[in-house]
């Protein structure tokens, strides 16, 4: 969701910059442009006083300008907050089957899964972050592989043990997970 919003807004900003910059560039270098466009020829200015003050005396002008600016400020504030906020799940709803349910602290589940993952063969360190909603949590796992560990096997083991246990013990139907594997930096050496 955030990914899509970010990309759409970045794309719109890029498009606006390219259209204005491109039209000015094309006209300034002597190209021709349709007559309805804001600039006429290369001796025209970017924004003349007459254009700038054209609507100044109309009653709706200043309220509209202020409203647009205010909306822009609020939207950018919201966007900034959404980007900067690290969404982290504080609790997971465990369906106990008797219609009541229990709350599991997100941090507790994170550290449990991370601890189990770190004990897997070939894993040096593991970090788990829960995101999503509390009825449908998602996990992000970062694994640091030991030297000479096989990445494919590490993921298979992680899936079969740590993630399956987490999913089952929290009573979840599914636990969509993104795994990110890095390796401990080490020198080349023979193990024989």
């Amino acid at each position, binding site marked *: *969701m*955030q*990914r899509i919003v*970010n*990309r759409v*807004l*970045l*794309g719109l*900003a*890029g*498009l606006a*910059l*390219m259209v*204005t*910059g*491109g039209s*000015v*560039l094309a*006209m*300034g270098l002597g190209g021709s442009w349709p007559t309805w466009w804001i*600039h006429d020829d*290369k*001796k*025209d*200015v*970017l*924004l*003349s*006083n007459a254009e*700038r003050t054209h609507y100044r005396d109309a009653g709706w002008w200043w309220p509209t300008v*202020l409203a647009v*600016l205010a909306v*822009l*400020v609020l*939207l*950018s504030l919201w*966007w*900034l907050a959404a*980007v*900067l906020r690290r969404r982290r799940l504080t609790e997971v709803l465990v369906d106990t089957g008797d219609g009541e349910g229990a709350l599991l602290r997100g941090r507790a589940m994170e550290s449990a899964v991370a601890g189990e993952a770190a004990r897997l063969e070939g894993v040096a360190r593991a970090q788990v972050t829960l995101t999503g909603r509390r009825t449908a949590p998602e996990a992000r796992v970062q694994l640091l592989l030991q*030297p000479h560990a*096989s*990445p*494919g*096997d590490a*993921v*298979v083991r*992680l*899936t079969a043990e740590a993630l399956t246990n987490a999913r089952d013990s929290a009573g979840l139907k*599914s636990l*969509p*997970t*993104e*795994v990110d*594997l*890095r*390796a401990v*930096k080490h020198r*080349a050496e*023979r193990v024989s």
Partner: protein
Amino acid sequence: MSEPQGSDGSNSTQRLPVLEKTSDTAADTTGQGQPSSAAYDPLPILGAGEDRNGRFWSARRVPATVLALLLLVGAGAFLYDITAVRADRPAMSWRKSLARQLAERPLDDTWVLVGAGVAVALGAWLLILAATPGLRGVLPMRRTHVDVRAGLHRAAAAMVLRDRAVEVSGVQSVQVRMTRTRADIRAVSHFRELDDVRADLDDVLADAVRGLGLSRPPALSVRVGRPGPKKG
């Protein structure tokens, strides 16, 4: 995307339809003869932020933060100053000089052209950021479970290949260059016949690439040489 063209064609995901029961990338696991139950899970549906190649799509957090900040500062400054002017205070000098510059400089003024060029370049860059997946350093791994998507960092993949290559007898040192589609391995061998070392390396590395579990295994290119007088 260029087709991988390495010595090990069996690693290519785009296989020609041969007489095999599998038609997917799972053929890589099954080809090894390992009865892996995970390979028979229902086929994964495309998850959020994933394209057909299973690549990870960056959230573009940093550019979004920068753009949001710039928008906030710009719109906030205008809002403040216009409100101030409406309340019968004098406009700030930056807005006066901006209005004057905009009204005085013709379009073929050098600085206007430079500014327009910068705007076009910046706009193109933002569009590229918006449309490309990014995260080029993360190689998507083969799905072993419907819910689990894994990515291996390129440096880690290169290190695994290096570790395996160094174990071949006769190999003194190895350099691995890893790109998204190919792995270039340069080995320096100080004893044994070069052809033998190369054959061993081919086997070992083909196995190592399978062990990486990538959804698009890189094409291998192996070069073996003798230690030169300069490079040790």
